[in-house]
């Protein structure tokens, strides 16, 4: 380029000048601020309003946390220590955290057991959550966990969870052994085996109620955040298989099965959970045998599971409907019968599509376990509303307690939803 004019005009520059840096307002932080915060009059106003909101929130929050006290045995102590500093009275958490986490009836010298159970969760969960990255045998930890956790939390003889596990194992082995002779036959045989093992095991447990026994804790003594977690975990794990059955039932061509599933799903989805809890609390007892020891927690688990399974069924039905018709036809043309087609072709794909929906239901359900506080159970919310805020020591310390409750729920729920988003990305097999 410079050659063109080299001989003609002397004042033409021979070489390229180095590029000048962009104007200060177009680089770095300034540019970012201009583009993201002050790109126009309206945007600038919004930014200022936003900043004011942030400032207002932080100006209340920061002194509350930083000046807060963890010392003191009641609200009057707190007031004395804090004076006018605007700090929070976190002493209530320091004093009452065992009650908040375990309820007021769980024996205090046994609290290590549920604690251990939830620590073990950290070992048991990863194999299931990150199944694609860990060796398959680690799943054994996950499979064993429910029984270990049951034993740790409820106590009693170790035979009970062992028998329960053996029943499932025996049922599974029988199922695998005769699976080739037909899915339904195998399923029935497996279930029958499991029940036989449980029945015999029940007799054995009845004979040796003290064998390898740790101190039993009745369910009515569960409370606090532990109760929320227990209810959430049990009900979600029970409702997923139920939900699958209901969803398949709703898609089925058998009118009686379909009718029942439709009525059940629409009924449960049409009423608020709280009315179902009322049913568990005040009505269900009429419909169960009077001496059957169905205490409140079991009745509540039944109703919440029903509730969740209806919602999960709808999610899975969405997944089933989203599959291209070709998948069903392909399964038929391979000569697969209904159970085979469902197990091998349809459900794996439908469930994959349904994962985000199922996780949403699970998170919602976990949040809804707080509703049991309305029917005089002492979960985290029930503990705060009842024994703690009504005790004369801590009357009026609501900000700290509710902030603690919010924090616990936020951590769990946000964690689950982040995991589900991650999983969704991992499972995406279409290449867009």
């Amino acid at each position: 380029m410079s050659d063109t004019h080299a001989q003609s005009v002397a004042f033409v520059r021979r070489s390229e000048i180095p590029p000048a840096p962009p104007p200060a307002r177009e680089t770095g932080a300034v540019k970012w601020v201009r583009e993201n915060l002050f790109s126009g009059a309206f945007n600038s106003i919004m930014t200022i309003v936003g900043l004011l909101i942030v400032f207002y929130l932080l100006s209340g929050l920061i002194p509350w946390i930083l000046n807060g006290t963890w010392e003191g045995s009641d609200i009057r102590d707190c007031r004395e220590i804090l004076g006018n500093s605007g700090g929070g009275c976190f002493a209530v958490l320091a004093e009452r955290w065992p009650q908040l986490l375990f309820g007021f009836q769980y024996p205090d010298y046994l609290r290590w057991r549920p604690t251990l159970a939830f620590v073990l969760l950290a070992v048991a969960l990863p194999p299931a959550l990150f199944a694609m990255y860990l060796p398959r045998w680690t799943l054994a930890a996950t499979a064993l966990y429910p029984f270990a956790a049951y034993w740790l939390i409820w106590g009693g003889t170790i035979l009970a969870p062992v028998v329960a596990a053996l029943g499932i194992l025996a049922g599974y082995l029988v199922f695998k052994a005769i699976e080739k002779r037909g899915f339904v036959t195998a399923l029935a045989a497996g279930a029958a085996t499991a029940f036989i093992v449980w029945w015999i095991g029940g007799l054995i447990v009845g004979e040796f109620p003290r064998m390898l026994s740790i101190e039993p804790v009745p369910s009515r003594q569960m409370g606090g955040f532990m109760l929320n977690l227990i209810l959430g975990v049990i009900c979600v794990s029970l409702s997923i298989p139920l939900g699958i059955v209901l969803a398949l039932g709703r898609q089925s061509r058998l009118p009686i099965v379909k009718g029942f599933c439709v009525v059940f799903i629409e009924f449960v989805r049409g009423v608020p959970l709280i009315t179902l809890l009322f049913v568990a609390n005040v009505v269900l007892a009429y419909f169960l045998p009077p001496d059957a020891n169905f205490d409140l927690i079991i009745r509540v688990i039944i109703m919440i599971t029903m509730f969740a399974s209806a919602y999960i069924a709808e999610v899975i039905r969405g997944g089933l409907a989203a599959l291209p018709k070709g998948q069903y036809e392909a399964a038929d043309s391979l000569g697969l019968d209904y159970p085979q087609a469902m197990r091998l072709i349809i459900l794996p794909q439908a469930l994959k599509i349904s994962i985000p929906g199922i996780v949403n239901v699970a998170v919602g359900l976990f949040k809804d376990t707080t509703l049991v506080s309305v029917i005089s159970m002492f979960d985290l919310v029930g503990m705060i509303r009842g024994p703690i805020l009504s005790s004369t020591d801590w009357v009026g310390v609501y900000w700290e307690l509710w902030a603690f409750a919010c924090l616990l729920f936020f951590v769990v729920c946000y964690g689950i939803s982040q995991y589900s988003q991650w999983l969704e990305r991992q499972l995406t097999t279409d290449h867009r």
Partner: protein
Amino acid sequence: MKKSVFLGTVAAAGLAAVGASAQTLSDVQERGTLNCGVTTGVPGFAEPDADGVWQGFDVAVCRAVAAAVLGDPTAVTFVPTTGKTRFTALASGEIDVLARNTTWTFSRDTDLKFDFTGINYYDGQGFMVPASLGVSSATELDGATICIQTGTTTELNLADYFRVNNMSYEPVPIETGSESVQQYLAGACDVYTTDRSALAAQRAGFANPDDHVILPETISKEPLGPLVRHGDSEWFDIVKWTLNALIAAEEYGVTSENVEEMASAPTDNPEINRLLGTEGELGSMMGLENSWAKNAIAAVGNYGEVFDENIGDDTAIGLARGLNAQYTEGGLLYAPPFR
């Protein structure tokens, strides 16, 4: 997670149900514990203490019954109930006896098919207001905002009282006692109304009890007592006479301290002898051991001891005996003869 165990429980429960019988006494004896319905927490009447052990006036009734039937006052499973759940809990057999300051009314006795076994506390509904409000009588409450704990006869009495006196009010219904107190203390209502015993109990817990006054009016009769299911007379008798035994024990001067001594040999008062089982066969008439009343009294003390320990003058709640004194001292407590 615990699917199998749960299913196992259901199956086992289903099997167990086959042999169920309607006889409460044999059920309790077989089970080895008494299921007793109490409140979710009213100081002095029923409240778990710092160790989670239930304490209180109503709780003592449960313990006395457990001691009489099973010989062990700790063999009680306490079931906290709300105003809404208490009757179903009893009706469905979840609890054997409901000792939850429940007012004896006609319709509860007849329409709801329960049997009140007696009265363990004579109460009445009252009002509490902040002293700063400058109110000295309930008749000055026209237009006030009133916090009510729902699920009791309280709402009905209140509505009747204001209607009869031609006054208006703004009801603020709250489910639990502790939350109505919080609302009251925050000033979200001017007046808090419930049974006078509970008013006194809750005021005792305030930071400044003297800033609040209980108005002189008592607007209702609230005879509170334990109740059982209709139709099981044997069990009804046991609960009724356990309560009477506590009352009679106070009348005859039997206390938790001297009961062992008095029961060891017949005294010169035949009534005491029959009560404590050193004379006659009163226990076996109800299907219990003859030491039933002795066990009950030894476990919780006589009525006066129970009262003094939980809600009496020396406690934070500081209730006077008033109507709840023995008939010999101008009260209404009058146990039928043990004969």
